[in-house]
């Protein structure tokens, strides 16, 4: 069998080692942070604390790498020969970014800064069967993961996705399916903004919804999946090493909504949703259990990503070309009545709205809200169409791919969470109703 058949052994859940020998015949062993299988004939190692190993490889290029399958505890001993060192290039960049994702916010970036990668040619490998109980003796019913990333569960996910009538239903159904069919309870979807940021549009399984929180491209697992448009799977690292926690000082209003996340996250995956080369979003899931998602799940995750991309694109097109007709069945949205005055303050410079002094929303959704509240206040109008929003130059929606639907979803969810006296509800494709209860005051700063 080819080495690529044993991808799980390269996850590093059970630490890997490299064995070298000096020209005097003195053996040496070092633990490895990462072993990457480049292809069946080459592997790459991230070189960080490699003093003796490196000097031995220079003297004697023959080495052996030990990796372990975390399911079976089988050891694979790979006889290799040092080929070359890389300090730049696509492989180096990809491994560097993977390591940087781990180093983010670990406080040990100086230790995790990748200096070089050592590329080894694979000569042969041996499965060391005798150090663990054989698979045939494995007790029934013992498993190390609860997630079910199979093609059968993928089929169920696709069925749920195909039933979605609009983008909001699609996002909710994806996260529900991740939970019920894949067994990944904590997940979220982020969509790209025009300013190289990702906006959290839907979440499931967290104490705080975190809808509206942001991640920069290139930051953490999520940001890097978006930047590189490749899935990132971390099967065994703690959240502190993986996760992006914004420490942005650019604007005090920018990160007032914290990104949701598990305190004891042990396993994370971020899958970019890409359609014809364009990033439509990132699907992220995490677990408090180690090893719930694995590299071997990659084909399923990629298939899921393609399905989601097609579904998102299809629903976006159906919204874009929909003729806005009033729906007879549309009911006015319910809102909580309140005696409290609702003071909406729009800050032009920061492009955001504060409600009674608390952050509500920023950017395009803030402008949409500001626009419709003003129209409501001056004209009493409560029915709006997507088309009229698109034609309004003040909203500054891009002419192509304006993501208006996702912006309206975000706005609706933020209002639902922060201001139940004001609500927007779809009244048919391409149109929505605004409902306001109580006295609203609009201020501009």
């Amino acid at each position, binding site marked *: 069998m080819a080495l690529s058949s044993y991808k799980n052994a390269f996850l590093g*859940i*059970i*630490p890997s*080692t490299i*064995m*070298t*020998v000096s*020209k005097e*015949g*003195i*053996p*040496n*062993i*070092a*633990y490895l*942070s990462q072993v990457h299988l480049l292809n069946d004939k080459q592997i790459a190692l991230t070189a*960080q*604390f490699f*003093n*003796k190993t490196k000097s031995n490889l220079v003297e*004697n290029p*023959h*080495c*052996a790498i*030990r990796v372990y*399958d*975390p*399911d*079976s*505890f089988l*050891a694979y*001993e790979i*006889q290799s020969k040092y080929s070359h060192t890389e300090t730049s290039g696509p492989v180096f960049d990809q491994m560097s970014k993977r390591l940087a994702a781990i180093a983010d916010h670990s406080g040990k970036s100086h*230790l995790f800064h990748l200096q070089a990668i050592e590329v080894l040619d694979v000569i042969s490998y041996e499965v*060391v069967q*005798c*150090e*663990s*109980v054989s698979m045939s003796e*494995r007790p029934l019913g*013992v*498993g*190390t993961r609860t997630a079910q990333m199979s093609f059968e569960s993928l089929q169920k996910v696709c069925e749920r996705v195909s039933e979605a009538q609009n983008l909001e239903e699609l996002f909710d159904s994806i996260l529900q399916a991740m939970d019920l069919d894949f067994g990944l309870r904590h997940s979220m979807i982020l969509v790209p903004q025009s300013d190289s940021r990702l906006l959290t549009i839907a979440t499931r399984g967290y104490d705080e919804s975190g809808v509206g929180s942001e991640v920069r491209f290139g930051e953490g697992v999520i940001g890097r999946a978006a930047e590189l448009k490749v899935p990132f799977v971390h099967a*065994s690292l*703690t959240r502190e090493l993986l996760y992006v926690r914004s420490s942005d000082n650019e604007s005090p209003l920018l990160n007032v909504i914290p990104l949701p996340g598990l305190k004891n996250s*042990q396993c994370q995956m971020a899958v970019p949703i890409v359609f014809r080369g364009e990033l439509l979003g990132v699907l992220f899931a995490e677990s408090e259990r*180690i*090893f719930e998602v694995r590299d071997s799940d990659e084909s399923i995750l990629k298939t899921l990503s393609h399905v989601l991309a097609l579904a998102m694109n299809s629903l976006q097109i159906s919204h874009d070309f929909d003729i806005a007709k009033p729906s007879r069945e549309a009911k006015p949205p319910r809102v909580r009545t309140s005696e409290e005055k609702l003071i909406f303050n729009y800050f032009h410079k920061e492009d955001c709205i504060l409600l009674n002094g608390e952050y509500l929303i920023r950017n395009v959704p803030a402008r949409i809200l500001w626009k419709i509240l003003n129209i409501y206040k001056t004209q009493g109008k409560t029915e709006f169409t997507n088309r009229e929003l698109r034609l309004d130059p003040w909203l500054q929606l891009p002419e192509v791919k304006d993501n208006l639907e996702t912006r309206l979803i975000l706005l609706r969810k933020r209002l639902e969470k922060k201001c139940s006296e004001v609500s927007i509800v779809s009244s048919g494709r391409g149109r929505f109703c605004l409902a306001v209860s109580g006295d609203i005051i609009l201020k501009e700063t």
Partner: protein
Amino acid sequence: MLNQTWAEFLESGVAMTLCCCTADLFPKGARCVGAVVGIDRKTVTFYIQKDSAHRVLPLIQETKKIAVVASLPSTYKTLQIKGNYLSHRDADSRDRIILERYRELFMEQTDLAGVPNDAMRRMVSFPAIAMDLEITHLFLSTPGQHAGAPL
């Protein structure tokens, strides 16, 4: 010579891998499943699962040179021992008690490190070979700037 702290470290739940080599300098490894430090702390008995030991013993007997790395899974504190092969024998029932004790300590450690326990319990430790090694060099191998420093 091992000090008391490192001797206790070696007899705790550390993960251990042994490396030896062929005469033409190709390395080969084996997992150690227990260790007992000699009273003079200049020798260590390492235990290797029997079939696994048979993979490496001919090489060890030929070249005599051995390295063993021992690392505590919960902290990554790591010690590397280099030395010379002295002798080996089949582990007996008394050794088996040592191996069972090591196994439990090791499982506690891997549990702390978040490694799936189901997998680790598949580790085979008996029958085993007990191999004596004479220590020649000790190195701190904990990942970091001081990795490789002699002790």
